[in-house]
C-alpha cells in the first residue's frame, strides 16, 4: 500500500530534529532506519502528519570508546554493530543478539536506537540493554538527559523518550572478557522471538563469578532475571546452571497469543535460560 500523506523533514543536527518535533506537535514520528515505521506507514496503521528523518544526522552514527563504556549512536545500523570490533570485544552479548535481528536487508537499514525506542516486547536488543545496565541519552527542548535502561523501557512500545525528544545514543558498560550468548526461540527464520534469553557471564576459574540475564517477550518490556543472576554466582556445573535457571520465570508476565500460552513461555524461559547461560559460560 501507499502511506498516507505526510510532511517530510530531514534535519542534519539533533537540535534541528528536536525543533522539528516541537514544531510538529504530538503528531510527528521520528524515522530512523525505518524498518519498523515503514511497514506501519505502508499498512496505514499510523498516519503521522510529519515524519522527521534522522538518518542524515552525523552525531547519531558510529561507535566510540568512552573509557569504561562504549557509546553507540542511535542511528548506527544493526549491521555496523555486528561488525564492530569495539562491540564484539566489550559487549559481545549485544553483538550476538543483534546478529539475530530479522535478516541482512533489514540489518543494513535498521538501527539499534530505533529498535530500542520502538521497544517491541519481542525485540532482541532491549533485554541486552537492561541486563548489561546500559543508559540512554535523550535530547529534548530543555536539553539532554541520561536515563538508565531500568527506567527507559516503560510499557508495550513505550519508552522514556517523549514525543518532542530524540534518542541520541546508547551507552553500554564494558564487559570485556565476559562470555555471551543470545538464545532465541522462534518458529521460522524471520519470526520474532517467542521467547529469547540474553546471557553474559564473567568466569573466574571454572565457575561463574557474575552473571547478567535479560528476557525477551516475557512481559510488556524486557525483564532482568535478577533471581537467576544471583543464583548463578559460583555455578560451575550444568546442574547448578539448570537449578539457577529454574527461577527464570519469576516476576515475569508473559502474554498468551497464537504462538504460545503464557505458561509455555514460562517453561521456555527456564529452558532457554539454562541453554543461554551454559553457552555463555562454556559449560556443558
Amino acid at each position, binding site marked *: *500500500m*501507499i*502511506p*498516507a*500523506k*505526510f*510532511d*517530510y523533514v*530531514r534535519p542534519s543536527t539533533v537540535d534541528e530534529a528536536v525543533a522539528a518535533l516541537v514544531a510538529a506537535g504530538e503528531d510527528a514520528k521520528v*524515522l530512523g532506519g*525505518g*524498518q519498523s515505521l*515503514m*511497514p506501519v*506507514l*505502508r*499498512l496505514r496503521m499510523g498516519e503521522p502528519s510529519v*515524519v522527521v*528523518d534522522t*538518518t542524515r544526522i552525523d552525531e547519531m552514527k558510529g561507535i566510540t570508546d568512552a573509557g569504561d563504556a562504549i557509546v553507540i549512536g542511535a542511528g548506527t545500523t544493526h*549491521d555496523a554493530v555486528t561488525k564492530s570490533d569495539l562491540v564484539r570485544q566489550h559487549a559481545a552479548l549485544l553483538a550476538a543478539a543483534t546478529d539475530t535481528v*530479522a*535478516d*541482512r*536487508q*533489514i540489518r*543494513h*537499514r535498521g538501527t539499534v536506537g530505533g529498535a530500542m525506542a520502538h521497544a517491541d516486547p519481542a525485540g532482541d536488543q532491549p533485554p541486552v540493554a537492561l541486563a548489561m545496565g546500559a543508559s540512554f541519552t535523550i535530547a529534548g527542548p530543555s536539553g539532554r538527559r541520561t536515563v538508565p535502561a531500568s527506567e527507559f523501557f516503560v510499557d508495550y512500545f513505550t519508552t522514556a523518550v517523549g514525543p518532542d525528544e530524540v534518542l541520541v545514543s546508547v551507552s553500554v558498560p564494558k564487559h570485556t572478557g565476559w562470555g555471551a550468548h543470545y538464545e532465541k526461540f522462534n518458529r521460522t*527464520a*524471520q519470526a520474532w522471538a517467542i521467547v529469547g534469553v540474553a546471557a553474559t557471564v564473567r568466569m573466574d576459574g571454572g565457575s561463574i563469578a557474575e552473571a547478567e540475564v535479560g528476557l525477551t517477550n516475557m512481559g510488556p518490556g524486557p525483564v532482568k532475571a535478577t533471581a537467576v543472576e544471583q543464583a548463578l554466582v559460583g555455578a560451575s556445573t550444568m546442574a547448578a546452571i539448570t537449578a539457577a535457571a529454574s527461577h527464570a520465570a519469576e516476576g515475569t508476565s508473559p502474554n498468551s497469543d497464537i504462538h504460545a500460552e503464557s505458561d509455555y513461555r514460562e517453561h521456555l524461559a527456564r529452558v532457554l535460560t539454562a541453554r543461554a547461560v551454559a553457552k555463555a559460560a562454556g559449560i556443558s
Partner: protein
Amino acid sequence: MQHITVTVDGTEYQSEVEPRTLLVHWLREGLGKVGTVVGCDTSNCGACTILVDGQSVKSCSMLAVQADGCEITTIQGLSTGDDWHPVQTAFKECHGLQCGYCTPGMVMSTVDLLTENPNPTEEEIRDGIHGNLCRCTGYHNIVKSVKYAADLMGGSK
C-alpha cells in the same frame, strides 16, 4: 514535493517525488525499472531487494526521498552489455527458480551475500538469504545456485 538526485544502474536521475513515495514505486513507476517487484506489504518477502550504496535493502521499506544522493543497483543493472552477472548465470544453470517472482530479490541478496562472504557454507547461504521468500518453496535449487555462483566468481568453474 521533494527534489532528489539518485544514481540508478549507472545513470543519474533527477526527480520530484512526494515524501510518501516508496523507493520501489519510484523505481518501477518513475523510472520504469519494473525488474524490481513488490511481493508483500509486510517487509518479509525480499522480492524488492536492491543494493543501496552497495548493501542489500528492501526497497519497499525505504522512501524514495531517502535515496537522495545514493547509488542504487537493481536487477536491471547487473549485466554488462550482453554478459550476465555470474549470479544470474548460476540461477539459470542450476534452475534456481520456479515461477520466478522472487528471483530478482534472490539474485540481489546473493550478490550482496557473496560480496561479504565469497565462499559461504550451505548454512551460511541459508542464513544469508533468509530475508527472501520463495513461495514455490524452491529453496534447494536456489541454495545450489548461490553455491554455483560463488564457485563461478571464485574461478573454480
